[in-house]
């Protein structure tokens, strides 16, 4: 048998997820429990994100899948193929052309618009987890807005490293109420959490969904004398010379050679197509 229900999940399951999504949007940053299903991929590959995407997709949608900024790595390719096969939706690598974007650990460089949905894959939704292992206790702390512990983590960072060394999954406060783990995006992306697009977060193994509605206030936690800083590698992209994008460092040989390239492959390719080139661009492009 080769006929899947549209987007793999059955209609009742999608309905259940949509209800959780509505609640998540109504209470920004709050982790809504949902009955996560077994998906035909291992935990850690984005089972939460896939379920949220499946519940959001319509036949008219255009889907883009990002893995660490790239469109062509295993995770992105396999999830894109999955929805091509089960939902027959159009797929794209262009950020601008997509209506639903599922992402792992990055926010696209290009600003998102009001008619787009960004779906995050989340490994551990609980920002307080490594400080307070008891779920009963962390839920109570969220309910009573007791977030002093989150600053203890940042305090430890400064005490040990001299600065806030948390570089990804940097905790944020949503709409002045809930402290949220923005999934392991680099803290460079944190300012982009205030966006025109709807942002949904799905954690499959942990069975939680949460959301940031468009134009919601999202503040990265910090200290008065150690303010938040959206850091990145201090280089220009070696392919498109962009200085304002998040960069991957790529080791090129065993003699210390390395290059920095935009982690957002679509954005980098777009810049190269419009004539930007960097230090290591192919010669025929510069000629």
């Amino acid at each position, binding site marked *: 048998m080769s006929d899947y229900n549209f987007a793999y999940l059955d209609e009742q399951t999608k309905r259940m997820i949509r209800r959780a999504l509505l609640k998540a949007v109504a209470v920004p940053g709050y982790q809504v429990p949902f009955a996560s299903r077994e998906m035909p991929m291992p935990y850690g590959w984005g089972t939460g994100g896939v379920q949220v995407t499946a519940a959001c997709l319509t036949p008219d949608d255009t889907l883009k899948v990002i893995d660490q900024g790239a469109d062509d790595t295993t995770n992105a390719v396999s999830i894109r193929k999955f929805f091509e096969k089960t939902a027959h939706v159009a797929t794209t690598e262009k950020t601008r052309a997509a209506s639903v974007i599922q992402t792992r650990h990055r926010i696209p460089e290009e600003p998102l618009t009001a008619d787009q949905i960004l779906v995050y894959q989340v490994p551990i939704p609980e920002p307080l987890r490594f*400080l307070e292992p008891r779920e009963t206790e962390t839920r109570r702390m969220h309910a*009573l807005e*007791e977030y*002093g*512990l989150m*600053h*203890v983590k940042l*305090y*430890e960072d*400064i*005490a*040990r490293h001299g600065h806030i060394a948390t570089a990804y999954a940097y905790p944020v406060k949503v709409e002045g109420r809930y402290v949220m783990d923005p999934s392991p995006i680099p803290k460079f992306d944190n300012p982009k959490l205030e966006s025109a697009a709807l942002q949904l977060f799905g954690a499959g193994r942990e069975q939680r969904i949460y959301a940031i509605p468009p134009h919601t206030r999202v503040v990265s936690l910090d*200290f*008065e*004398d*150690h303010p938040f800083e959206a850091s990145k590698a201090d280089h220009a992209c070696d392919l498109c010379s962009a200085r304002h994008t998040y960069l991957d460092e790529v080791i090129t040989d065993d003699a210390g050679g390395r290059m920095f390239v935009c982690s957002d492959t679509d954005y980098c390719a777009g810049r190269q197509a419009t004539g930007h080139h960097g230090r290591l661009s192919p010669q025929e492009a510069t000629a």
Partner: protein
Amino acid sequence: MTPLLSVRDLSKTYGGRIGCADVSFDLYPGEVLGIVGESGSGKSTLLNCLAGHLAPDTGEILFDTRTDGPRDTRKMSEPERRMLSRTDWAFVHQNPRDGLRMGVSAGGNVGERLMAVGARHYGQIRAQATDWLGRVEITEDRLDDRPSAFSGGMQQRLQIARNLVTGPRLVFMDEPTGGLDVSVQARLLDLLRGLVREMGLSAIIVTHDLAVVRLLAHRLMVMKSGHVVEQGLTDQVLDDPQHAYTQLLVSSILQV
């Protein structure tokens, strides 16, 4: 003078068994109350009920709050009660591992209560943590060490610093010197006595060690099988015990 803590007819049962029954007392500001009794006499149950860790079945616990005067902590909402336990109350556990975060540095442990009440300036938090470590005789160079690298006595002193940093008015202590050897115990008691006097703290100390109450407590309550069998001034109770159980307790002390 209004009592800081006023307890009336407090009872707690575990099913058919009595935890503590019909306990009433007043604690005035600056006063230290000792609760002694053998294991299973209900002293820890009583302390946990007072500190809001257990819900008593009947009775009143009136605490003299800073803003609204005496209020029944049992009728407070949970956020209010937890706020109290972060600011005006402190709880020193017998085992420092219960009261400390073992994966967080000493400075972070002391700073946690400050950050929980809204401190957001790293430099100031650190300065206060350093100051408090000094007060409990832990040198400044241990500020960034984890409690797991500390000795038992140091852990206990760290726990005390962590609890007192927000300037509480009432401290609950559950066997604060249990599990420490006598010389460390003596130093800790000395330190506690100094801090209590200096900060004008009120304290309730649960212990089975009569030497501890003799040294620290102004008044003493003796418990047996969940009931208070005798209470009064510490020296009076210890020197002239009236109840048979208290007489037994006092005569059981080993003389070295």
